[in-house]
């Protein structure tokens, strides 16, 4: 075994390779299928650390005699196993949408998990043996481990700019090669071996006829590639994703286009659009400039709504996307259009010469001004005020691709975000929000309605007069908020426009809602999901107590009513009767109308709905977790009815598997307790489990929690993850390095852990304000600020693990050493799965709170350990 710097560098490089491999594998999943399955596979693969510790524990006598050879073998195998596992995984792709219906899919998922487990297991085996052999200097090895991981996190961020996803494994392979060279004296042989493995990674797919990444045929980009005349015009790789633009005459985009356009707008010329895909998801339509005779097309798009009452507007577009909102604004006569786009890759694409023909140099239009970062952050800190602020289909809210129902923070849609938009309005300005409305029963739309209502209330004034809501069934919904309230004439104009588009008015100040129409609808929706299939879905009598709305006669239309195009059929139509030929009622629209009346009348209608549709806040910015916890078990026999919450349910499954696996990994050393040393009784072992478990749980909880928090200021989850992971690991590494110098006295560590808990507790109160405040600064300053926020607590969090491990070694508890390390790793996996669940259910503040409690428990466990382990 090498000594000194070479040993530490080898450990650091391999630890870095493991982190880089995690990120690379997640990218492979993001591009080939769906990223959250990558997170699942990788987080479970990290159980390899727990598994390795058990193997090492059980075979410690043999391993002590053969440590060098075994560690070398494990290290050598990491690269070939990574390459082999990745290649084999491409041959057994699984498809999330068939997980329930196709029995083979779960085995494919298991195969992916087992395959990717192998390189992590091998890497963990190497690290475990080295830690065991070098236990006297654990804190230095641990420092090397964390520093290597942290720096590799930054390195892979850079690698994402130069290596496309199908070649990204080169990054971990290089780090592995470096580790090999440092570890093995025959460095030429090591270099040759690493080069051979890397070359195999690059050429084997072509030789074997296996795709470098098997892209699911259900990804958006796969459909584009199937078009006979498809042509890739552009590709840009960066941490912001693999952005590709395809052209084809078969592409047609018009999100939410009114059906009436068919009779009023000439057919658009062929090849009007190209499709933009990020990580194969999409497309976002990029539209060529239309000839003047086709300009009427824009009037039939839902994003045209605000311009009906705000001509010549000074407009702000919160998210540029494919540019359709900007084209609409310009064609609606906007005097200027300021756009925000947080993804620099998208802006690069629109500046690219290859796409100049299709983008029509829209960014060079003198009326267009570009803000190169997040629209919400910009509006919160600018003195500029706008007549129209547009948030249109900026995100696939509630309309994910099959299997792609990931849980992600939607900071553009929270109550606080809406308040920032409202703040950015001139007096009389209009905030226009258009979202997909393609769920039945509706979920995300209702959650967003609740958010808008809450924000409007918070903004003050006669908020009920400030809103106009219209839907197109199974298409889009548009919510308009006017600062100062709509006039009667404006409501009439909007109502006429709604009729012209054949959309359905859902709410306005003068809208007359007939509560008898919604009788029993909440019970019917519940029965439709959780019934046994025998109920006629015509339960009655459980409607909320909503009285007739108070109609302001001054604002009511002249005839006192508005006749919608749909949803006006009697509510007692037999539910199971065959449909007739006429236009019929649409329950989701009726439900939406009733829920809006509930907001206005302060009746908790939404609370009685079968799904949880609470408002989005910065603390709970999720369009996920619609199933109420009390209903979770009831979904088990009807998973296909809640497919859009699979991402959430998958987290519960991951947590269950992680807990089970952790128990399995912890048990063997307990069963073979006789060999663990007579000095440790049951209480001592329990204290050790609690201590190292809480550390693992606490550390990962802070890490994953802060990634979500910082995504708000950094506006990109990949950058946020890289900064938080790298920052925490590097500063924790430094903490572990200095730990041995200042934690000789046993009271120091408990005091430090109490300090960590207090710091984390304080962060829950301070972070929202800090993140809001730094939003005004440049990206670099924001990055530095985020690092500065992480550094102190990460530094302190480096102490407990290193100190306790060194302490165990110093008490002659070598046999406990690797076991404790494995417990730590296993609980990290549990924590990683638990964080999103805690965040969705209790909020992001609660995540840091849980971490704080974890460190307090660890403190108590440490005191118990000191007493019990002599």
């Amino acid at each position, binding site marked *: 075994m090498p000594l000194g710097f070479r040993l530490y560098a080898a450990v650091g490089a391999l630890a870095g390779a493991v982190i880089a491999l995690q990120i690379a594998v997640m990218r492979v999943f993001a591009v080939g299928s769906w990223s959250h399955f990558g997170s699942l596979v990788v987080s479970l693969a990290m159980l390899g650390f727990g598994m390795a510790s058990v193997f090492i524990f059980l075979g410690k006598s043999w391993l002590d005699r053969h440590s060098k050879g075994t560690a070398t073998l494990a290290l050598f195998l990491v690269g070939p196993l990574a390459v082999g596992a990745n290649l084999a995984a491409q041959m057994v792709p699984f498809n999330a949408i068939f997980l329930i*219906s196709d029995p083979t899919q779960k085995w494919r998922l298991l195969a992916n998990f087992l395959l990717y487990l192998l390189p992590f297991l091998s890497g963990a085996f190497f690290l475990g043996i080295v830690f065991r052999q070098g236990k006297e200097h654990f804190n230095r090895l641990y420092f090397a481990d964390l520093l290597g991981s942290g720096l590799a996190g930054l390195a892979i961020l850079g690698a994402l700019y130069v290596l496309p996803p199908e070649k990204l494994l080169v990054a971990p392979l290089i780090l592995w090669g470096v580790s090999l060279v440092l570890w093995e004296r025959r460095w030429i042989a090591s270099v040759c071996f690493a080069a051979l493995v890397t070359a195999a990674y690059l050429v084997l797919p072509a030789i074997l006829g296996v795709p470098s990444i098997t892209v699911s045929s259900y990804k958006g980009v796969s459909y584009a590639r199937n078009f006979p005349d498809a042509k890739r015009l552009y590709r840009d790789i960066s941490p912001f994703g693999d952005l590709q633009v395809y052209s084809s005459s*078969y592409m047609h985009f018009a999100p939410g286009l009114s059906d009436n356009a068919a009779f009023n707008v000439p*057919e658009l010329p062929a090849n009007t659009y190209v499709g933009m895909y990020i990580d194969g998801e999409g497309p976002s339509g990029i539209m060529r400039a239309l000839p003047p005779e086709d300009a009427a097309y824009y009037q039939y798009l839902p994003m045209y709504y605000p311009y009906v009452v705000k001509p010549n507007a000074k407009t702000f577009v919160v998210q540029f996307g494919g540019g359709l909102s900007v084209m609409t604004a310009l064609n609606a006569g906007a005097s200027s259009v300021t756009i925000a786009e947080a993804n620099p890759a998208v802006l690069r694409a629109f500046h690219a010469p290859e796409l100049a023909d299709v983008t029509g140099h829209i960014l060079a239009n003198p009326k267009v001004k570009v803000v190169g970062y997040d629209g919400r952050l910009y509006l919160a800190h600018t003195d500029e005020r706008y007549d129209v602020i547009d948030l249109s289909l900026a995100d696939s809210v509630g309309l994910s691709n099959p299997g792609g129902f990931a849980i992600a923070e939607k900071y553009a849609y929270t109550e606080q975000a809406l308040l920032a938009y409202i703040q950015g309005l001139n007096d009389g300005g209009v905030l226009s929000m258009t979202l997909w409305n*393609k769920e039945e029963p509706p979920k995300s739309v209702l959650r967003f309605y609740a958010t808008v209502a809450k924000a409007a209330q918070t903004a003050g004034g006669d908020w009920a007069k400030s809103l106009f809501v219209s839907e197109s069934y199974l298409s889009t919904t548009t919510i308009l908020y006017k600062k100062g309230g709509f006039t009667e004439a404006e409501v009439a104009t909007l109502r006429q426009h709604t009729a012209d588009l054949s959309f359905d008015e859902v709410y306005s100040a003068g809208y007359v809602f007939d509560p008898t129409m919604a009788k029993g609808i909440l019970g019917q929706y519940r029965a439709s999901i959780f019934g046994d299939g025998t109920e006629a879905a015509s339960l009655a009598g459980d409607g909320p107590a909503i009285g007739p709305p108070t109609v302001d006669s001054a604002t009511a239309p002249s005839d006192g009513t508005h006749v919608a*195009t749909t949803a006006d059929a009697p509510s007692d139509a037999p539910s199971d*009767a*065959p449909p007739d030929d006429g236009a019929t009622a649409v329950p989701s629209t009726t439900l939406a109308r009733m829920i809006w009346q509930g907001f206005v009348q302060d009746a908790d209608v939404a609370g009685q709905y079968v799904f949880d549709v609470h408002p989005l806040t910065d603390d709970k910015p999720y369009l996920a977790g619609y199933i109420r916890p009390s209903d979770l078990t009831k979904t088990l*026999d009807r998973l296909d009815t809640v497919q859009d919450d699979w991402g959430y349910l998958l987290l519960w499954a991951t947590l269950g598997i992680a807990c089970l696996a952790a128990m399995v990994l912890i048990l063997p050393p307990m069963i073979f307790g006789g060999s663990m040393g007579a000095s440790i009784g049951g209480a001592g072992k329990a204290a050790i489990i609690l201590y190292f478990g809480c550390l693992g749980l606490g550390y990962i909880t802070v890490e994953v929690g802060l990634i979500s928090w910082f995504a708000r200021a950094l506006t990109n989850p990949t950058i946020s993850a890289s900064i938080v992971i790298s920052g925490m690991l590097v500063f924790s590494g430094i903490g572990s390095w200095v730990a041995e110098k200042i934690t000789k006295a046993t009271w120091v560590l408990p005091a430090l852990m109490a300090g960590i808990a207090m710091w984390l507790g304080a962060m829950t109160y301070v972070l929202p304000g800090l993140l809001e405040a730094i939003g005004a600064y440049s990206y670099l300053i924001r990055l530095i600020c985020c690092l500065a926020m992480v550094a102190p607590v990460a530094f302190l969090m480096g102490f407990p693990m290193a100190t306790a491990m060194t302490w165990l070694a110093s008490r002659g508890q070598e046999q406990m050493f690797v076991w404790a390390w494995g417990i730590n790793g296993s609980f990290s996996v549990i924590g990683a799965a638990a964080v999103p669940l805690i965040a969705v259910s209790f909020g992001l503040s609660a995540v840091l709170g849980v971490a704080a409690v974890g460190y307090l428990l660890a403190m108590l466990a440490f005191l118990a350990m000191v007493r019990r382990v002599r």
Partner: protein
Amino acid sequence: MNRRSFLAGTAFGVIAAGQATFAQAAVPEPYDWTAMPPMDDRQAFIDYMVQHRGEDPTFLGQRFDIFLNTVQHKDLWDDKDKRAFLMTPREEFVLKRNLDRAYASDFLDIGFGVTISGPRLVARMSSSLNVVKGDKVLEIGSGSGYQSAYLSHLTDQVYTIEIVQPLFERTGGIYADLIARGYSEFTAVNRKNDDGYYGWAENAPFDKIVVTCGIDHVPPPLLEQLKPDGIMVIPVGPPGAQHVLKVTKTLNADGKFTVARSDIYRGSIVNFVPFTKLQDGKIVGNHNG
């Protein structure tokens, strides 16, 4: 390997996988529009179909079971649609690897990012169209060919367009084989490989249109090619969570057209509960759990 040759290779593999291996008997009798298989007795249905259509008794049994379920769920309510359901050999249109699930309630993969919808959805969509003999029906997205085969039992004028060429060719092979075996009703299916967005202007207008591919708006050319008082149905959402949008086009007294969106359930809440298991005509559980 270049992408085109890879696609071609994939297509060949899928074509090979698509060929069923069970005995493929010829249809013993010419197609009869008035023929009505028994609908109230499983064995009588099987016997009838074996005798008149020469089909596999195992699949026939499965078809009858799912038929009862579909009727129970009110996804079929009309004798002509029930007949079409019972007369269409779904097993011919699924991939070989999915043959044992041909009559499960689930949608199934057929390659190219395309699925064959579950029988319940196909029945509900087709019933909602209320196709009568002589109607000119356009289908956008032929896919497996099952939907147009089903429609060919309702009318003798079915037009279907598929955008993915290898899938178009594979389905063409399946049709050619079935027609050669005596399924003469499938000659009513007119097919072309093209972009369905623009409809089939040469054969327009259509009485009914069924769109089975995802798009973010209803294609205006299709609305134009729909006859006044015509009906269009479109499943919306990802496979497995699809909801059917019904669009009707009406000519007003002022000469203008009105388009109305509605659901196909007459304003009642769609029953999403899992497909139920029947035993002796009673619900005893579901197929999920």
